[in-house]
C-alpha cells in the first residue's frame, strides 16, 4: 500500500535513526503506519518524534492480545499534523511481567490514559508521579475489566471503603469546598474539590468516572452493526461525531470507502451538531454570568436546529443517521430546502444575538481575563479542540487530516491566543459562521450517487484508526477486528479526556463563583471521558 510522501519521509528517517531497534514497520493505510518495538525504545522514540517532527501523542491505550499473540500490547498514536499522517507505536508487555514505564513526566497528556490502562488491564505503572486509581474508583475490588478473561456478566465482589481519597491541602485560612458528584444544574456527575483562601481558588482536584459504563467492553460483545448504535451513546451531544468516527474506523479496517454523497451528508450532519452545541454553549455561558435573556434566544435557536435535525435524520440528536459505509437517509429537495432556510435564518439571528451580547458590558467584564489557559500550558497539556484553539494551539482534523468531505469545502479555523472564557466563546461564534458557509457550499455542490457502500462483514485481524473533528475537538476510535463480524477491541478517545486537566489550571486564582462559567466555556463531556 502506498503511503503519503510526507509521512514516508518521516518513516524513512525513523528507520535510519533507530536502525536495528524497530522490529517491523507496517503500513495499514495511506496515512497510518505501525511501528513495532520494545518498551525501552518508547521514551527515546517519543522524544525524537516530538522534537524533530512536532508530533502529538493523541491516544494511548492497551489491548489484551494474549489469546492470539501471548502478550498485552500498548499503542501510542502520534499525529503528525504537517505530514497529515499517524504513526502508531506498538509495544508488547509480557503477561509474566505485567508492567510498563510511564511517559507522564515528559508528556502530561497521557497522565489519565496511563492510569486507565493500569486500572483496566492490571499492568503496573512504573515511574508515574501519581499512580493512583483513575477509571475505577478506590472502592472497586481488584478486577481488570478489559482483560479478555473478565466476563462482562461477572458479579463483582462487594465494594468497600471510600470512592476516592483527595489530597490534603492545608494552611492558615484554607477551606475545602466539595461540589458534586450530583450538581445543582441538569448536568452530568463529577466531583470537584476546591481549596480556597478567601474567594480565590488555590487548588482544584477533580474526581470523574462516575458514569463509567464499560462501554469499550460492551463493544467487544456486540456484532459490528449494533456497535454503531452504541457509539451514538458515548456522548449524547456528539452522537453523530462518535458514530461517524467509529464507522470510519471500521470502513478503514475493511478497506471500504463511503461514496461522495455519503461523505457530504456526513459533513453536513457534523456541522449541524457543531451548530446546535455551539449555540447552546454561547447561551449557557451568558446564563452563568446572569445574562439570561441571551440564553433564551440561544435556546430558541438551538431548538430550531434540533427540529431540522428531526426532519433530516428522524431524530433530534441525529441518531440513527450514521451507518457502516455511509449514511442511512438521503435528503429530498424539501429537506434540503429546510436546511438552506435554517442556515439563512440562523445567520441573521446570530448577528443579532452577537450584537446583544456585545452590548452588555457587564457580560464582557465577567468573561474577559476569566479562566485563562495560557498558550504554553495548553501546548504542554496537549489541549485540543475549541479550548486549544482559544489558547493558540492551532489544530483541527478537518483541515489537517481531511475526512468526510472537508477536503472539498473551504473554511478557516479561528484561533485566539488569550485563552480566556471570552475567547472560547469567540471561537464558537466564528466557527458557527464557518459552519453556515460549509453547509452552503455543500448544498451548492452536493454530489449525486449512492449514500452507502456495501459493507457486509469486516475481515478479521485488521486494525484501523477512525477520526472525526467533533464540535468539541478531535475524536479517535481505534478498532481491532475479530472473526464473525465482531471486534476484539475498540478504543474510544473523546477530546474531553485530554482536556479535563486544563480546567484545574484555568481556574487557579479565579473566584469560586466564576467556576460555573469557566467550566461551561470548556463544556467537557463526562460521559465521553468516563465511557
Amino acid at each position: 500500500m502506498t503511503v503519503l510522501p510526507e509521512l514516508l519521509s518521516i518513516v524513512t528517517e525513523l528507520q535510519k535513526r533507530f536502525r536495528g531497534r524497530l522490529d517491523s514497520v507496517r503500513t495499514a493505510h495511506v496515512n497510518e503506519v505501525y511501528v513495532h518495538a520494545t518498551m525501552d525504545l518508547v521514551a527515546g522514540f517519543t522524544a525524537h518524534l516530538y522534537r524533530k517532527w512536532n508530533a502529538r501523542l493523541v491516544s494511548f491505550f492497551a489491548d489484551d492480545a494474549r489469546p492470539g499473540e501471548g502478550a498485552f500490547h500498548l499503542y501510542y498514536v502520534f499525529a503528525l499534523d504537517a505530514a497529515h499522517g499517524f504513526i502508531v507505536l506498538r509495544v508488547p508487555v509480557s503477561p509474566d511481567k505485567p508492567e510498563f514505564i510511564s511517559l507522564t513526566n515528559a508528556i502530561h497528556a497521557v497522565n489519565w490514559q496511563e492510569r486507565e490502562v493500569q486500572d483496566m488491564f492490571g499492568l503496573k505503572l512504573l515511574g508515574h508521579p501519581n499512580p493512583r486509581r483513575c477509571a475505577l474508583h478506590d472502592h472497586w475490588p481488584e478486577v481488570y475489566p478489559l482483560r479478555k478473561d473478565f466476563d462482562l456478566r461477572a458479579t463483582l465482589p462487594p465494594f468497600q471503603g471510600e470512592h476516592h481519597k483527595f489530597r490534603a491541602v492545608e494552611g492558615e485560612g484554607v477551606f475545602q469546598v466539595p461540589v458534586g458528584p450530583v450538581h445543582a444544574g441538569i448536568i452530568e456527575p463529577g466531583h470537584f474539590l476546591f481549596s480556597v483562601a478567601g474567594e480565590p481558588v488555590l487548588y482544584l482536584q477533580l474526581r470523574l468516572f462516575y458514569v463509567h459504563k464499560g462501554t469499550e467492553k460492551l463493544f467487544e460483545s456486540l456484532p459490528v452493526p449494533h456497535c454503531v448504535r452504541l457509539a451514538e451513546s458515548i456522548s449524547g451531544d456528539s452522537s453523530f461525531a462518535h458514530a461517524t468516527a467509529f464507522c470510519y474506523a471500521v470502513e478503514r479496517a475493511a478497506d471500504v470507502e463511503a461514496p461522495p454523497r455519503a461523505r457530504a451528508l456526513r459533513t453536513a450532519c457534523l456541522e449541524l451538531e457543531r451548530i446546535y452545541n455551539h449555540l447552546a454553549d454561547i447561551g449557557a455561558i451568558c446564563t452563568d454570568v446572569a445574562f439570561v435573556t441571551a440564553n433564551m434566544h440561544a435556546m430558541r435557536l438551538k431548538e430550531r436546529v434540533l427540529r431540522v435535525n428531526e426532519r433530516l435524520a428522524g431524530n433530534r440528536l441525529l441518531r440513527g443517521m450514521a451507518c457502516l459505509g455511509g449514511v442511512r437517509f438521503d435528503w429530498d429537495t424539501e429537506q434540503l430546502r429546510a436546511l438552506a432556510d435554517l442556515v439563512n435564518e440562523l445567520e441573521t439571528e446570530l448577528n443579532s444575538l452577537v450584537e446583544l451580547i456585545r452590548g452588555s458590558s457587564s457580560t464582557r467584564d465577567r468573561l474577559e481575563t476569566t479562566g485563562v489557559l495560557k498558550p504554553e500550558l495548553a501546548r504542554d497539556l496537549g489541549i485540543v479542540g475549541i479550548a486549544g484553539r482559544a489558547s493558540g494551539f492551532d489544530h483541527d482534523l478537518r483541515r489537517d487530516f481531511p475526512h468526510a468531505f472537508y477536503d472539498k469545502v473551504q473554511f478557516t479555523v479561528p484561533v485566539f491566543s488569550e485563552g480566556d472564557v471570552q475567547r472560547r466563546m469567540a471561537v464558537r461564534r466564528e466557527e458557527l459562521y464557518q459552519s453556515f458557509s460549509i453547509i452552503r457550499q455543500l448544498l451548492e455542490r452536493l454530489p449525486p450517487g449512492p449514500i452507502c457502500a456495501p459493507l457486509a462483514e469486516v475481515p478479521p485481524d485488521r486494525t484501523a484508526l477512525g477520526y472525526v473533528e467533533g464540535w468539541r475537538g478531535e475524536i479517535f476510535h481505534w478498532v481491532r477486528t475479530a472473526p464473525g463480524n465482531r471486534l476484539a477491541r475498540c478504543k474510544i478517545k473523546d477530546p474531553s479526556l485530554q482536556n479535563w486537566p486544563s480546567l484545574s489550571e484555568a481556574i487557579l486564582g479565579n473566584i469560586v463563583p466564576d467556576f460555573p462559567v469557566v467550566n461551561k466555556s470548556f463544556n467537557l463531556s463526562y460521559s465521553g471521558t468516563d465511557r
Partner: protein
Amino acid sequence: MFEILRASLKTGVVTTRYPATPAEVSSRARGRPEIDWANWKDARPGATICPTGAISYQDANGQREAKLDLAKCIFCGLCAEVDGAIRMTNNCQCATPRRDDLSTRATYRLRGDGTHDQILTGPLVGQPRNPEQRPVETESLETLGKQIKQRTSKLFGRSLHIREVDAGSCNGCEIEIVGLNSPVYDLERFGVHFVASPRHADMLLVTGPVTRNMELALKKTYDAMPPPRLVAAVGACGCSGGSLASTTPPVAAWTP
C-alpha cells in the same frame, strides 16, 4: 436594556401551545415502532437486527412467544427496514406508571421453517399471569396524564419540584431535559420546576443505567428528599439499563 427589550419584542411569543394543540413532531420523526401483531409472520429478522433486544422471542412446544419492549427501544427504525409488519410511527409519547406496560407480547403457532402464523394469544400489554395484563389500548397516555395529575395534585398541590440526577446517561437525555426549560417548551407554565437540591424536590428524575460509581450518590440523593416523593426514569437506559430495578426505590413513571 432597550436593545434587550427590543430583541424580545421582535421575537414575540415562541412557546408551543401544547397540550392545547398536538405536539409539533415532524412526520419524518421516528417514534415508537408498531407491530401488526395479527399479520406478523416472523419475529426473527427484527430480533436479529434490533441493537438493544427490544424485540425478542422464545420458542417452546411448537409455540413462539414474541415480545416488543419499549423500555429498551431506542427508536432506531432498523426493525421496520427488514420487516414489513413493523412500522415506525412518529409517536414519542410512551410514558407510563408501570414498567410492565411498556412491553407487549403475543404467542403464535410455530411452523417448521421457523416462521410463525396463527396468533394464539395476545397481543397483551404487561406481564403474563398478572391481573393487570390487558389488551392493547390507545388512550393510555391520556389516562396516564390524568393519573399523574391526580396523584401530584393530591400530593403536592399544583406544583411539582424535580431534582434531576444523571446516573450514567450519555447526556443525550440531559440535552432534552434542559430543552424543556427553553422558551419553546417552558415547562414552568405547568408548575413544574427543576430545583438545585434534593431537599426542595418532590420528584427524582433519573437518567442513565445507574453505574456502579453513581449508585451511592443516587441513593443519598433519594434519601435526602423529604417524603412524599416520586421517582421517574427517563430514557431507554433509565428504563431498562440493567441494575436500576434492583438498586433504586420504587419508580412512579417510565418514559423511554
